């Protein structure tokens, strides 16, 4: 797993992702770790399932890396996103950004996770005690309900 931008079915090594952006020019490495949360608005998640259009997702992650390089020169970015079945507390995504000075790596890291939720073809399916659902958009406010044919969902 030496690619800067990768989709993997294996547990993510934080250290490995961080090592990809290590640089003598860097005075800071900011790491964002996205993990599987048990409760969302009071509802218990049993586990999550992530699916990706892997080839395109890696290309889009690389595109985010290019955007970051343009916006924050001299930074280096690596992003690893896991797919498959993830348990509570598992790591879903690791973003590492190194920069000569700390401010840029903080900003770029935040930018990366927000962009992932906009343009990278990865989907999350929530599994609950009483059902399951593909989460429909990055704001987690809209979803495709399965087995509950709301008017708007009818074909």
């Amino acid at each position, binding site marked *: 797993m030496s690619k800067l931008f990768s989709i993997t079915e294996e547990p993510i090594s934080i250290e490995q992702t961080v090592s990809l952006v290590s640089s003598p020019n860097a005075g800071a490495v900011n790491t964002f770790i996205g993990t599987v949360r048990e409760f969302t608005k009071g509802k218990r998640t049993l586990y999550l399932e992530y*699916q990706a259009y892997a080839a395109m997702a890696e290309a889009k992650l690389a595109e985010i890396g290019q955007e970051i390089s343009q916006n924050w020169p001299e930074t280096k970015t690596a992003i690893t996103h896991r797919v498959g079945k993830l348990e509570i507390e598992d790591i879903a995504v690791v973003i590492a950004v190194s920069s000569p000075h700390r401010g840029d790596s903080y900003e770029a890291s935040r930018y990366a996770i927000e962009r*992932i939720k906009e343009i990278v073809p990865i989907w999350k*399916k929530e599994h609950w005690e009483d059902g399951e659902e593909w989460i*429909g958009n990055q704001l987690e406010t809209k979803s*495709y309900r399965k087995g509950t044919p709301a008017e708007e969902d009818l074909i």
Partner: protein
Amino acid sequence: MNKILFFAALQEKAGKESIELDVSGKSVKEVKEFVALEYGLAKINESMTAINEEFAANDDVIQENDVIAFIPPVSGG
């Protein structure tokens, strides 16, 4: 011939990950309409479309051998 990929809720609804179909010369919009009817995927209208792994517009025209993917609203991270 073209390959058409489904993901997430669309994949479950279609019951398959992909189909092979010759849609060269058709617009993205036309392919969406056809697939929506054929596979009962009304939700496809909320999806973005990618041609050869790059986001495409509704009026883009499919070429021979293009790979088309319907991208439901994403929820990674």
